């Protein structure tokens, strides 16, 4: 309760709030103006890093996927890349393309997820339903490729688990055409809707200078005019061979962040088309592992396009050493640092997720905005509490 003479009202937004997610925002408001907003994180901390120290290397794959459920491939890929550095192996070309394919499908549906949540945060249930509905074809594609809707665990040391199913390229093309057509309606109904513009333009402006200084990452960084993308800065998988642009916007406001995501979806579709056109023939698992599989099994595995694990995977031993890997996920840069002491589990695993790096923006961008701008800014950051809490 407010005592007399006090002007500020403290609002506890979350964790039981329709738009707070698994976190609490402690807001001090003066009338309709936010004086201070502090994010209170950690509600869904799952101690992924500590758990990794008691799990075997392969068992960590599903573990690192769980925190960022909408963007699992980035974590999966980054972890496996670090592991491969320690193991000193390089996946075959075809596997690299398949990794890229899944990563881009995942980027699209992760962006759609973020855009949809943002939509309903500013009151457009249609944007929410459209984005979530249109995720569905992409999830269907990913499901055909990997056998699961979200928790793909598709990327394994030395390659990937499934080959491209017959006809997937064609079906993907249909989905891409559908999405391209729909984009026009998205713009007409939502992105160009004057009410949307009024709510997002000029709200939560992040300057280029601050974005760099605060260590912001991903689309939120690029929306402030910084053309930084790990896919270009430190290419991995099949990205060196693919053509794509780094999407940037200059304004740095909520709308710019939304636009970066929208344009990245278009860019990802371009990448998917190239992957499908250019994908080379060949094995999808590193030969050193493939030759460990019994010959009969190897044959049937090639026929079905589904990899069998060599038995060493059950107790994968990794030479002592350290490795760092970086991947551009849907929400930004994912970094894994693995320290191995030659045992069955890592000695230490560090997992830096983009949401954790972006959470500082809650405090930074909300000073002096209006109460209604809190969700408009929150959504535009595509912040995912479990990912930040890990």
């Amino acid at each position: 309760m407010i005592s007399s003479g006090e002007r500020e009202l403290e609002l506890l937004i979350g964790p039981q709030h329709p738009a707070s997610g698994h976190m609490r925002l402690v807001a001090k408001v003066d009338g309709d103006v936010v004086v201070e907003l502090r994010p209170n994180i950690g509600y869904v901390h799952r101690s992924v890093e500590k758990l990794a120290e008691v799990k075997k290397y392969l068992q960590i794959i599903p573990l690192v996927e769980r925190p960022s459920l909408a963007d699992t491939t980035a974590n999966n890929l980054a972890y496996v890349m670090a592991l491969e550095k320690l193991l000193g192996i390089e996946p075959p070309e075809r596997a690299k393309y398949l990794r890229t394919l899944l990563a881009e499908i995942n980027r699209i549906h992760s962006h759609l997820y973020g855009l949809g949540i943002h939509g309903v945060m500013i009151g457009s249930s249609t944007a929410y339903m459209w984005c979530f509905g249109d995720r569905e074809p992409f999830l269907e594609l990913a499901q055909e490729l990997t056998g699961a809707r979200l928790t793909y665990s598709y990327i394994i040391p030395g390659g990937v688990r499934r080959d491209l199913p017959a006809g997937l390229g064609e079906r993907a093309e249909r989905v891409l055409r559908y999405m391209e057509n729909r984009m026009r309606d998205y713009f007409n109904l939502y992105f160009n809707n004057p009410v949307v513009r009024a709510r997002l333009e000029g709200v939560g402006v992040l300057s280029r200078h601050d974005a760099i200084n605060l260590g912001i990452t991903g689309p939120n960084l690029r929306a402030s005019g910084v053309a930084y993308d790990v896919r270009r800065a430190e290419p991995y998988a099949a990205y060196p061979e693919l053509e794509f642009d780094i999407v940037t916007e200059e304004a740095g406001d909520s709308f710019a962040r939304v636009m970066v995501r929208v344009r990245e979806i278009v860019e990802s579709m371009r990448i998917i088309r190239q992957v499908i056109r250019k994908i080379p023939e060949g094995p999808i698992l590193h030969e050193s592992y493939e030759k460990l599989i019994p010959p009969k099994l190897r044959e049937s595995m090639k026929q079905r396009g589904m990899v069998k694990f060599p038995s060493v995977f059950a107790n994968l031993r990794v030479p002592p050493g350290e490795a760092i890997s970086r991947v551009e996920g849907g929400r930004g840069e994912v970094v894994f640092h693995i320290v191995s002491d030659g045992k069955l589990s890592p000695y230490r695993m560090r997992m830096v997720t983009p949401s954790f790096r972006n959470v500082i923006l809650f405090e930074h961008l909300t000073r002096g905005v209006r109460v209604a701008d809190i969700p408009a800014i929150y959504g535009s950051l595509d912040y995912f509490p479990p990912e930040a809490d890990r």
Partner: protein
Amino acid sequence: MDILKLLFEPYIFIPLVFPGLVAAFLLLLIIIWLERKIAAKVQLRYGPLYVFKPLGGVIQTIADLLRYLFQEPIVPREADKLAFLMTPVFLFGLAYLPVVAVPISPTYYAFRSDVSLLIVMALTTLAPIFTVLMGWSSNNKFSLIGGVREGYLVISYEIPMFLSAISMAILYKSLDLVEIAEAQKGLWGVILNPLAAINMLLLMYMSTSKFPFEIPEAESEIVAGPYTEYSGIIYGLVMGASYVKLYVLSLVYSILFLGGWNPLPINDPMVAGAMLFVKAFLLVALGAFLRAVYPRFRIDQAISIGWKIAFPLSLISVVISLLLIMGGVSLVVK
């Protein structure tokens, strides 16, 4: 016996039984379902479907109503109990009250008054007070903010709405809704003064918290605004109140701008009433459709729309009406 006779007096029967409350409840039942259906269709889904599937789940609202009835209404310990429980009733009642002055046909009305437009407009301003009170009595910060938001909105839509309505009264040289409707046998008000029509439509949706002005109960910001602490059937009441208010305003709007019961094929109160109801229904449905198109404005933006756009527009529409009158456009059929 006397009570029964009293019930059939037109000034009781028309607003409280038929068409009055019967029509209002019919509209409530259909419109809440329709709103969900419309939003669902635009959003690539089906909406309510399984409660009576042959008609697309049309009685979903009844099922919801039953659920509300059996749900435990929780009254927060810290709330001002009397105010907390009374406000929904007053809110609903006052949202509906203006209907007493709305005529149903040239000959069928609860009572006829020279200033019925003024009565309706004045009565519609009463309900928001209870929304504000509701926000206060819940003793919840989100409710409080919601109530205050409602207060701000009231100030910004009330005056231009009044002016828009008055501009039509000037045009028809009457404050009597029956006369106003009768005057539109030829040209409808929406053609004579389109500016006032658009303006009033906007303000009508604003005053009933329809999208894009669903600001007092903005879910992602303040949970449910003034209604946050309400549950059970009293929540059902407050939810119904804003629809009822929109319905009443739509009736008035139809009479002011859409010719009321004109064009009338046969001179029968039933047909006239049905015509009016259909027009009002379409207006309410349009409000429901807008939910699928728009997100919500921020409170400061809504207020500035009220003062910077709607207010000047309403002044201009008064001027237009005056010019039309002075220009001798005597379209007013008497």
